[in-house]
């Protein structure tokens, strides 16, 4: 199976671990991710804060590159995924916007490239059966809080990822790996996202309530599918412990890192040494559970 792969800017930097683990999982499952040559930034939140044309043209440039490959586009970063889907939607529904974007890019783009999240590819194109057959290890009852955040599931009319209030795709992957996906209410709450630098106070408040609920629900770790959620929930735990007098020590890993472990990939190749809160207990547990 071949896809055009859009890693997104964080893959070069703060989400190197996400990039590594997606590649390892794809390799193990014979999924061919062909990285879009010369891909550029989707503009993320700063673009839609600033100008509508900019916020559509930046992702559209990459969609146009993907269109030329003839393959569906696979994305992992939730923000990139959302911006790509919004751009497609705007271009498809408004001839005026399509004309404007064509004038901006110097080429017409019709909004037709299918944008898929890697989790969707795993569950819908590969399927539970094939995944199970490929696993050499299991999560052995590990209690996982599956966390989706905002941008994968909202707005549902545009992203069409999963149920916007109670998504289950990541939970399904956890169950397939032999883990126990905990029932908890903060799956789609916001972590503060792009405020990581500018409004850390907001990130601390919002991430605190998410971590608190994950802990209360008995989770031994959180599984995420968004680089911003990962860095906010992982790197800010120490700050939250200090400012709000908590004692969090909850590993926050990418769902692809858990999949990689079950596929027998070494933790180092999955970038698991890059997390701030050590995921060592998970690694030990999976290692012994064949």
């Amino acid at each position, binding site marked *: 199976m071949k896809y055009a792969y859009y890693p997104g*800017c*964080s893959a*070069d*930097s*703060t989400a*190197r*671990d996400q990039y590594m683990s997606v590649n390892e999982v794809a390799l193990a499952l014979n999924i061919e991710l062909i990285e879009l*040559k*010369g*891909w*550029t*930034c989707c*503009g*993320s*939140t*700063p*673009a*839609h*804060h*600033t*100008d*509508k*044309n*900019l916020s559509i*043209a*930046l992702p559209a*440039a990459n969609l*146009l*590159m993907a269109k030329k490959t003839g393959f569906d586009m696979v994305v992992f970063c939730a923000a990139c995924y959302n911006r790509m889907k919004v751009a497609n939607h705007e271009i498809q529904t408004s001839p005026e916007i399509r004309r404007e974007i064509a*004038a*901006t*890019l*110097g080429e017409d783009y019709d909004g037709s490239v299918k944008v898929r999240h890697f989790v969707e590819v795993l569950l819908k194109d590969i399927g539970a059966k094939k995944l199970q057959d490929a696993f050499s290890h299991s999560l052995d009852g590990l209690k996982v809080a599956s966390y989706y955040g*905002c*941008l994968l599931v*909202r*707005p*549902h009319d545009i992203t069409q990822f999963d149920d*916007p209030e109670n998504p289950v795709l990541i939970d399904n992957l956890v169950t397939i790996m032999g883990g126990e996906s905990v029932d908890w209410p903060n799956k*789609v*709450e*916001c972590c*503060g*996202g*792009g*405020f990581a*630098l*500018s*409004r*850390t*106070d*907001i990130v601390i*408040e*919002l991430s605190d309530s998410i971590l608190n609920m994950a802990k209360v629900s008995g989770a031994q770790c959180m599984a995420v599918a968004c680089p911003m959620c990962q*860095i906010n929930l992982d*790197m800010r735990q120490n700050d939250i412990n200090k400012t709000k007098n908590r004692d969090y020590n909850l590993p926050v890993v990418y769902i692809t890192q858990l999949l990689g472990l079950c596929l027998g990939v070494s933790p180092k190749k999955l970038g698991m*040494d*890059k997390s*701030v809160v050590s995921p060592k207990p998970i690694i030990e547990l999976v290692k012994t559970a064949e």
Partner: protein
Amino acid sequence: MAIVISKEKVRADLTTEVQKISGIDIRSCLQCKKCSNGCPVTGLTKVHPSDIIRGLQLNERDKLFNCDLVWMCASCETCFERCPMKINMAAVMDALRIIAVRNNASRQKGNVALFNKLFLRTVRMFGRTYDIGMIAAYKLGTSSYLQDTDKFPMMLLKGKIALTPSFKADKKYTNRIFARNQDRINS
């Protein structure tokens, strides 16, 4: 209590401008407050999403320009998802931020507008973001030198942040995009 809304107020400039930029008809709001109840930052702000729509309906220009929520909204889109009238509140907030920047409205805590500008500047320069360059410029601009200084050595050591920018982007399209939007972006 009867609220009288004059025609002038309904058709007044800010509301028209927001509707033009966002493409959203704010008159359809029922004030059911589902947006405010679902908003993750309402506990931290004075003004709630439903107040924003009400303010627009009444054209309370100054109040909206100076309200904290405009720059505290995390664009999580819970408001839009749950709105029974399908009002894209997130797009309304984008429009308010765009108008606020255009009018040099007061700089709020955290200076999100500066962050946006610097983020886009690195995208214009490299075709992709460059975290360290952006963070350094933001710290200079906001005098927040000491914030998170403990984290950078650790992040660099773990390879959790890139030291140098990426030069792999093909800037064919981004150059065109930024050139065409020059006057509106101001980065």
